[in-house]
């Protein structure tokens, strides 16, 4: 019970954390410090609550009557909530530290307080979403979160792009919320109550509809393709620490919703898992393919988030098929992979977004083509980015690998399941993961290379400076998390396995012994790899890190005057892959013909727009916006026609009423 009290307190503190800043002067940073402190305290309380709840191992409820026409204030902390609560508490509080110098009130007097207030609400709302066990409470928390994210991400609303992105976001999130309305209303009518607990009354058919609504409704928030349209713009245009929270944690609320709903639905169908696998594979591959084509660092990270959501969906789809066949090992591997990836993604993606913030702070642009050579000027940032990049590419020995490993193992185990014909192709999920993997490497090598390596491509980049400690420290915390989970994954497995046990219908206990054994080996090998690298580096240190560098340039194949503009650029690096995947990403190239003896100055530019948003949604909206208002001919100001409408209505109603 005490854990619930702690978590509730923490939610309240988090929600309120931004408001004390309003008591301080407009340029004063003190208010911001107070807010951050409150947030850290709140998160600390919350985490202690979570730890208490994990240790006690009991699922605790709190139920309070509520004077709403329906629903009660019903809160529950079970291991599944705990899994999601941890990133909800950790990432925003790390982000708030970061914001102290990144979005200092002194430099942003106009929107600093507003941003702080909604940032706190966003964190609190997310925490409430995770613990709510009643549809009414859930949806209220959900919308607090969604709206707070809207306000936080449109902090710079004087900028047209920000407004545009905010608009797309709020429309998308509202459509998602309306799907949730439908879902919960249906839930109520099928189960007779709004309580989100297992119900015996659900019919098979009802479950199917609920599942579809959940995937669409929550999919909008999670960013499943084709519901991802809001995601890149909103992430790119929000302040970086907000992007970090949105991408690192808020997307996961969509994932949480789907996981929670599927845990409540008794009749699992085979096609549920199948469709999630297909959706996950498409989301993952298309997401990363588009990410490769991006020239905007934050848009690239946003698409990479979409990719990671795809990966999480693959794991969940696998778990669902496993549940259908009653294969607990597969459920365990798939869902553990998913849940662990939720953690991992929240760590490395927020690390990368915070890093992007530091870079943007230094270079004053988000355009990769304007960067380059920052590794020398900001070595710490570069190293931290490298850590994030390796983690997100799921390379050993960092954390991304562990979660993907679990899913892979699940897919391989599935080979042994005696299945219906069409569903024996489920292991192809492993191939999807294996396709995503190298593409992620391509994407992040490109990013790392164009940002930090080579020569500076612009004036700004050459004048960049290392980020201050308060920007670095939060990143170090996150990077340490990546390394920790990557090297000692077994420690995190216990909580996640108990969450999986909540998810499985009759709470049949799932064991993780086999996986744990293998994970031990992975830790050994990962540490071995690090030690081996360290060993070789030490052996060759004299030769490698000699002080007297020969002041030579890169070998230029005989061309005497290479400039930094001749480096392989971000677009050219990505072009090779983008061309191969043009059927997914549909790039639009600006490629002027070069002709004549003295060709004029010309530039190649490859833009990868969002396939769904720019080629489908926007045109459809434009058409609708053009044709639908045509009904206005009925209202041209002629009063005698208006009177006629009244008469006509009476007649029509008489006819209908007959």
């Amino acid at each position, binding site marked *: 019970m005490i854990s619930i009290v702690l978590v509730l307190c923490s939610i309240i503190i988090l929600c309120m954390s931004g408001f004390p800043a309003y008591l301080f002067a407009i340029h004063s940073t003190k208010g911001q410090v107070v807010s951050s402190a409150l947030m850290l305290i709140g998160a600390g309380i919350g985490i202690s609550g979570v730890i208490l709840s994990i240790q006690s191992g009991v699922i605790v409820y709190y139920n309070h009557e509520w004077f709403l026409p329906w629903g009660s204030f019903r809160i529950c902390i079970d291991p599944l909530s705990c899994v999601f609560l941890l990133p909800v508490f950790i990432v925003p509080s790390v982000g708030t530290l970061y914001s102290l110098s990144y979005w200092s009130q002194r430099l942003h007097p106009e929107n600093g307080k507003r941003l702080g207030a909604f940032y706190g609400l966003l964190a609190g709302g997310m925490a409430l979403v995770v613990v709510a066990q009643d549809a009414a409470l859930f949806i209220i928390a959900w919308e607090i979160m969604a709206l707070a994210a809207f306000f936080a991400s449109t902090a710079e609303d004087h900028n047209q792009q920000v407004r545009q992105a905010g608009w797309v976001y709020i429309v998308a999130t509202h459509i998602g919320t309306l799907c949730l309305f439908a879902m919960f209303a249906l839930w109520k009518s099928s189960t007779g109550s709004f309580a989100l607990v297992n119900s015996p009354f659900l019919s098979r058919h009802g479950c199917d509809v609920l599942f579809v609504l959940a995937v669409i409704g929550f999919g909008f928030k999670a960013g499943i393709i084709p519901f991802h349209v809001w995601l890149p713009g909103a992430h790119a245009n929000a302040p970086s620490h907000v992007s970090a929270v949105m991408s690192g944690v808020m997307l996961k609320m969509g994932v949480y919703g789907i996981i929670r709903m599927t845990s409540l639905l008794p009749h699992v169908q085979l096609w549920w898992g199948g469709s999630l696998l297909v959706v996950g594979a498409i989301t993952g591959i298309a997401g990363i393919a588009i990410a490769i084509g991006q020239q905007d660092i934050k848009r690239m990270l946003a698409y990479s988030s979409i990719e990671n959501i795809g990966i999480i969906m693959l794991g969940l789809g696998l778990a669902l098929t496993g549940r259908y066949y009653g294969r607990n090992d597969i459920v365990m591997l798939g869902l553990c992979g998913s849940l662990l990836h939720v953690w991992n993604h929240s760590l490395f993606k927020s690390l990368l977004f915070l890093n992007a913030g530091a870079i943007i702070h230094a270079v004053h642009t988000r355009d990769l083509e304007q960067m380059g050579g920052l590794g020398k000027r900001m070595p710490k940032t570069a190293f931290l980015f490298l850590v994030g990049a390796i983690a997100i590419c799921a390379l050993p020995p960092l954390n991304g690998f562990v979660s993907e490993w679990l899913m892979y193992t699940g897919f391989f185990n599935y080979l042994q399941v005696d299945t219906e014909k069409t569903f024996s192709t489920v292991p192809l999920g492993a191939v999807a993961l294996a396709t995503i993997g190298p593409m992620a490497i*391509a994407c992040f090598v490109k990013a790392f290379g164009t940002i930090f390596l080579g020569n500076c491509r612009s004036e700004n980049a050459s004048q960049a400076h290392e980020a201050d400690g308060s920007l670095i420290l939060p990143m170090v915390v996150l990077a340490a998390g990546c390394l920790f989970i990557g090297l000692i994954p077994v420690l995190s497995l216990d909580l996640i396995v108990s969450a999986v046990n909540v998810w499985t219908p009759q709470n049949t206990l799932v064991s993780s012994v086999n996986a744990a054994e293998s994970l031990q080996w992975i830790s050994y090998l990962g540490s071995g790899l690090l030690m*081996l690298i360290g060993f070789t580096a030490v052996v060759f240190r004299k030769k490698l890190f000699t002080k007297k560098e020969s002041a030579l340039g890169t070998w230029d194949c005989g061309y005497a005057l290479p400039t930094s503009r001749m480096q392989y650029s971000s677009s050219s690096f990505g072009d090779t892959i983008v061309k191969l995947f043009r059927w997914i990403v549909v790039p639009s190239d600006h490629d002027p013909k070069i002709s004549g003896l003295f060709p004029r100055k010309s530039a190649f530019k490859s833009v990868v727009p969002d396939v769904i948003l720019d080629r489908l949604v926007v045109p459809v909206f434009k058409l609708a916006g053009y044709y639908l208002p045509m009904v206005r001919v009925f209202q041209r100001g002629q009063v005698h026609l208006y009177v006629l409408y009244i008469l006509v209505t009476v007649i029509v109603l008489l006819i209908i009423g007959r």
Partner: protein
Amino acid sequence: MNSMVVDVVEIILHLMLLITMPPLLLGIINKTKAWFGGRVGVPLLQVYYDIFKLFRKGMVFSVTTSWVFRVGPFVTLCSLLIAGLLIPMGSFDSPISFAGDLILFAYLFGLSRFFTTAAALDTGSSFEGMGAAREVTFACFSEPALFFAFLVLAKISGEISLTPMMHGPLEEYSAIVAAPLVLIAIGVYIVLLAESCRIPVDDPNTHLELTMIHEAMVLDHSGPLFGVITYAASIKLFVLSALLLHIMIPFQFDIVWLNWVLFIVEMLGIAVLVGITESVMARLQLLHIPYLLISALLFCAFGFILLIR
């Protein structure tokens, strides 16, 4: 007690082969190519000489480069060595084997690729950037192909660890698996050619613009770093050959020591095969390489589909 000694001996042998043998494969390939070209060719052990010589040399660093450039080849080498620990040699168990190690195996290749390409980009040279871009692109096809092959092997053997998976089922293979195995063998062979930069995908002997993949990436590395890169490339070839070996020739003798001999001979055989392939084929046009890799992917995919049909 006795079995433990055997185990230790096996591990030592495994490590020794892993560390010492790879450059030999390159030598064999070169010799084969020379033979086909009617030349005497460089000595069989020339690669060893090269590597030792390189390690004694000093290094030249471009002012553009940073620590990534220096560390990259070592990370590549280390991760490939670890991968080498996971792959069984012939009928012998690998030193380290656990359920799901094949994924680690594949991802260690990814790690090596990450650092090779990052180090290439660190020079700021457009040639090396071009090579890196192509390297990461082609991996997008070779890696799924590899996983298709893994799926087939796992389905056949019922195991998800490299060692038991490679050793096949306890009884004989059933007839139905023959066709899938042949298909994935072809697929993996193409992957092997691509990953170790062999004709028809890449030409290891030139770094002309048209063929710039691997060799272009390492243009700026010199001295020990280049030695490490050459050595790492040979290990990659070795490890992939060991993988291919099991798919192609999954049988063994009853006498233990003969198996070692058999393994070495088989490995050399594969090297000869690669050499022959390099000699009789022309390098593909760059734009056609993806098609070759996609065909490898399709071979493996068909193998899988035949199996689960």
